[in-house]
């Protein structure tokens, strides 16, 4: 029986659904990894004591600012998640065909990481200088800055936020990068040895 048009349409649809299905699966598993690592990264509000606010009694400080610390962390982690998704998309669109091409991905990984770092620090600077229109984030930063003379509390907050962002970025890129580029991720080669033996 000769082929008819609708057979080609069915074939094309099947191929499209398969492709979409794979993408959904990949994105889904990447999001899962991101959520797990993100939840794991929401620690600044546990590590950092709430800033001293002379206008409020201690019990109220805890309840007021803990939520704000969590919000800042969630924003930074979401930024890292977006970068990680961008990285996965990038390695999907530019698949290396040779070891020589794969070497270049190390530079790309560091570029992504540096951009992420710049964006998160930029967010901190923006929040301190201008402040977002939601929550009391600007006030929170300022309270941390004033809490000690040398500003070490604020530095600790920023460092913990960076650590959360880097952790999310690293965990996703090391667990979800394909075997051809995983060696571009620092220590990724050791993870690869466990996964692709």
């Amino acid at each position, binding site marked *: 029986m000769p082929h008819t048009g609708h057979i080609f349409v069915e074939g094309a649809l099947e191929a499209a659904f398969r492709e979409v299905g794979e993408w959904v699966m*990949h994105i889904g598993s990447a999001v899962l990894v991101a959520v797990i690592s993100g939840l794991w990264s929401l620690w600044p509000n546990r590590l950092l004591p709430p800033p001293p606010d002379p206008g409020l009694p201690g019990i109220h400080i805890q309840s007021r600012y803990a939520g704000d610390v969590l919000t800042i962390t969630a924003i930074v982690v979401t930024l890292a998640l977006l970068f990680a998704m961008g990285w996965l998309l990038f390695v999907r669109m530019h698949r290396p065909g040779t*070891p020589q091409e794969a070497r270049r991905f190390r530079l790309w990984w560091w570029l992504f990481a540096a951009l992420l770092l710049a964006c998160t620090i930029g967010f901190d600077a923006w929040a301190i200088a201008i402040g977002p229109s939601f929550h009391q984030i600007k006030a929170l930063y300022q309270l941390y800055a004033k809490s000690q003379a040398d500003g070490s509390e604020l530095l600790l907050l920023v460092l913990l936020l960076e650590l959360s962002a880097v952790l999310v970025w690293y965990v996703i890129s090391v667990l979800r990068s*394909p075997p*051809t580029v995983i060696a571009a991720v620092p220590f990724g080669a050791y993870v690869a040895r466990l996964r692709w033996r």
Partner: protein
Amino acid sequence: MSCHVIGIGGTGNKCLEAVLHCCAAGLGPADANIAIVDQDRANGNVFRLRRVLDVYRRLYRDLHSAGSSLGDSPLFGTQIKAPDDPVWSPLPDLQVTLEAHFNRAGLTQEAQLLFDALFEEERERAQPLDEGFRGRPVVGAAAMYSAAAEGEGFWSELFQDLQVEGDDPIRIVVLASIFGGTGAAGFPSIARLIRKHAQRHEVPVEIGGILLLPYFKFPEPAKATGEHLTRADDFLHTTQQALLYYHDLLRARPGLFNHLYVVGAARPFTLPNLGPGSNRQENEALLPELIAALAALHFLRNGATADASVMLRAGHKAEEGPDAPLAVEWNDIPTVRANAETHDARDALGTLLRFAVAFQSFYKPLLIKRAPPADIARQTWFYRLISRPGIQLHDDSVQGTLTALDGYCDLFVSWCRDLSRTRHSDDLRVKLFAFDAAASGEHHGKQAKRALNGSAALFDHVVGVPHARRLPDMFYSLSAERIERSRSGLGVFVDQLFRSCRLEGQKFSSWRE
């Protein structure tokens, strides 16, 4: 089952080269004995064949040893056996003539008259035969039949095989041209000798004959040299005479060949005139030699059929349209397996060519004669295929094997390139391997370096299949696909690279695990 492949004369040797490449690609039997029959031992074609044979056997030995095993990989899957000196010359002495060989001066007067009657031309009797029989099959047949009876060279091995009783038939393939001297002389003579010996010892033997009709031509030399050279214009006449003789012979002895494959070209390919023989005569590979090799492997795999009237026919299917240019494509090439689901010859040779391109362009620079950079040594493929199997790249034996593999890849790539090259506007175009992609580097990003770009384009497009796997798919397979258990040492890397270079199959997205 024992298999023997005998190539006779220049064309037979070129077909043997094609057989070796097909065996390297995994199309051959588990083992095969190879014999080269050529009166002109210093012939360039013999030299080229010996190079391929030597490097093949070296690689088989290195990659099937205790320290490094390819296991049951199709790559170099045929164990090629050959005597230490694989070339058998019927008349090995220097400046030997037919007169001297038969000691005409010492014959009785009646015998001398008979000798002169059989070889009435002076040049047949007195021409030095160091460089072959120069298109005189009668001379060759006499010399070959008498010399073969002495049982030297590959004959001793073959005669031994033909004395071992067993139920499995011994399969023997004889490859020769009908239009030359050595091939036309040896083709029926050697088959008759083998058949006679097998019948004497009651050993089951199946003989397949691959006969090549004129398939190339070359221009006349610019000036006469005085030597009795083979001329392309003589080919048709020689072929006609030989076919008449073979016709009578096969009618008189219908069972001489179990299968007879006849290969030719309606439009002969053009080759340069390289002179009368010796090392000048190293002809480029041509399509009919590949078809002859596939016929030989078809016979070795499938053997003789009970129905003697079966006619297997393969030929060129013209492209549609009266003005469409004639071109031979993979659809025109016969397969080796009788009921192959896909085109096994295309898949095997295409995979081997992609393997050669990938190895030479991307992996050889990282593995031969230098320690790989740290960022390469960290990569997943390197750990799985080089570090983990314990390969010491500074080891001389490892470097020797890699260098031999590089040498084989050189020979194979140039053989494929020769097959697909159009030398003359009148020649039939052969569109099996597309090397033009390498020159232009088309289909790839402009940013890539030209050489790398060209190699990548060559890898992707050298064999046209509908859903070809690209270079990134290959690299993914190399890095992540399961390693076969029976591989060890350098065999792990070599087999994984070969399997990853397959033309079709699963493609990989970068997120798949």
